[in-house]
């Protein structure tokens, strides 16, 4: 009985820490969607690029982790700005299919560039100590603790940012009603650019954290699509939803790995997507998303 409880707790804690990283990436999705109504399917590639830059700064250039982290953030801001300006701005007002496809085209380019620059192998970070610590019988690695801590700190920061900071309020205003925000003197273009920057930054932080867990490779980019269930679960346009959705999907993934694996091996790879289909069928706008009401 006792061991069964620990078994459950083990998966719960691992799921929570993974889920907090998912929440971070989901936040990137939601930020862009909320202010610009674009679903950025290249989010996973943003993660990958961030992780690779940080990795190559630490390992190839021998900088310490903190310095390379700062440099990575700088590059992410540039990436976000460039993508918004060069690729998405010409497509304002185009149908959804164009916008989905353009972000998919972006995934091709970013992945190709990464392979060109860094090759195809999976590489390891090895920054955090390996041996796990014992938390009341549940084994947790430092890495998971750190990722959970960083993610929670960032999520809190953004919650406060959107509530009190001037720019945060601008962003919420644009998300709410573009024309009204514009007539109040808010520069919609600037808000778009800022959202892309923030999204690129948070997803590259997520990429660095996940890269620490499983190594940095091109496979990292698929994680962007793996976060989609979290975003859908919480509702595409809700920041709270992104956080809760991310946590729930993380927990679901690891609990399904723990309990369903004997019946269907490796079910955890696809379990979030099964949940996503169900959510889409039953409650398509997610837990906290705003339902679109249509009238003729």
């Amino acid at each position, binding site marked *: 009985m006792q061991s069964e409880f620990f078994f459950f707790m083990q998966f719960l804690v691992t799921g929570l820490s993974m889920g907090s990283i998912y929440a971070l990436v989901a936040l990137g999705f939601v930020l862009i969607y909320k202010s610009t109504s674009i*679903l950025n399917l290249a989010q996973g590639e943003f993660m990958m690029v961030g992780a690779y830059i940080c990795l190559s700064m630490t390992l190839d250039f021998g900088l310490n982790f903190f310095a390379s982290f700062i440099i990575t953030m700088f590059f992410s801001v540039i990436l976000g700005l460039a993508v918004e300006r060069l*690729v998405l701005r*010409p*497509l304002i007002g*185009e149908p*959804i*299919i*164009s916008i*989905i*496809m*353009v972000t*998919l*085209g*972006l*995934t*091709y*380019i*970013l*992945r*190709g*560039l990464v*392979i*060109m620059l860094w*090759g*195809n192998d999976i590489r390891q970070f090895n920054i955090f100590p390996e041996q796990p610590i014992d938390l009341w019988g549940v084994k947790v690695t430092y890495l998971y603790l750190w990722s959970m801590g960083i993610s929670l700190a960032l999520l809190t920061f953004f919650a406060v940012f959107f509530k009190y900071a001037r720019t945060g309020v601008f962003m919420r205003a644009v998300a709410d009603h573009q024309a009204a925000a514009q007539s109040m003197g808010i520069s919609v273009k600037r808000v778009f650019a800022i959202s892309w920057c923030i999204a690129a930054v948070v997803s590259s932080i997520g990429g660095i954290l996940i890269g620490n867990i499983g190594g940095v490779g091109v496979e990292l980019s698929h994680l962007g*699509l793996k976060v*989609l*269930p979290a975003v*859908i679960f919480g509702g*595409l346009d809700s920041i709270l939803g992104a956080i809760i959705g991310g946590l729930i999907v993380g927990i679901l993934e690891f609990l399904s790995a723990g309990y369903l694996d004997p019946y*269907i*091996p*490796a079910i955890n*790879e*696809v379990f979030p*997507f*099964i949940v*996503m*289909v169900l959510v*889409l*069928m039953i409650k*398509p706008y997610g837990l906290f998303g705003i339902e679109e009401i*249509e009238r*003729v």
Partner: protein
Amino acid sequence: MPAGLYHENYRSDERIFQTWFVRIWLIAFLLVCALFPLFASKYMISTMIEVGIAIIACHGLNLLTGFTGQISLGHAAFMGVGAYTSSILVSHGVPFSVSLACAGAMAALIGMIFGIPSLRLRGLYLAMATIAAQFIIEFTIRRWDKLTGGVEGMYVEPGTLGPFHFDDRIHLYYLTFGLAVVVTMATKNIIRARSGRAFVAIRDRYLAAEVIGVNLFKYRLLSFAVASFFAGIAGALMAQYLEVITHESFTISQSIDYLAMCIVGGLGHLLGGFFGVGFWFILERILEVVTTTLNSAYPDHVTWFVSIREIVFGLVIILFLIFEPDGLAARWRTIRAYWKLWPFSY
């Protein structure tokens, strides 16, 4: 004497071949295709089989995405369903013709299941549902080893149909060619008929379509079914072509590729499928040549050229969407309109 095409009744307006000129060109084109294996190399025949399969798949996707406006990012997965259905049936001794039909039907069934959310979902959310379909089907193929051979893949027994044996590439070419013609005709007729008009109405303004009496759910599901049926047929052909199929033949990148072909060719144009597939394959061959030349010229930097294909295709997708969102079919139309009255264009 009228200097253009004037229709005096709806019958002539809806005719498939509007002028004799078109008809003659089409017959010439079909003749060239039919005689193609007589003078082409083995490599060319294989390429043309791939082209034919892609055209069948693209017609399906074009009906779904271009005409009904439902974005699907899971088209390759439905092809996978068809591929595995047909090869499993053939290996159990079912005749190839039956297994081909079953492949289409099975893909249509699965497609309709994943199309059910389209009752309530549009745009982005539907795209999400099809991504989920892609991953779930891929996972099933990979993990259901007993049925599909799992990661190791599955050997496909070559089918036979009357005098044709599809382990021969030329026979497979004729099968693909014939089916591509049939599918093209079917697509054209679906577009012309009531259902096609309903599709377009749903795409353009679905609320208005519902108000004038189009049954949204029925036609959305129908378009999913037809698109997946074509995908299933294409998948069955693909299985015959590849001889060994694994889950890696039907990944999300393939789905994205098919969607990209449709966009490059022109969504919502029948010709879009041909133009898109043609452009894609020609570009792919050119890039292959470029990569091998670069590799032999700079053998020290081979890693740089591995991903040329991905980068170029990504650029092609983005540039087309920004500068020619209606695709090559629209460009073709403007060019033709220009030459029609040349040199007296005013």
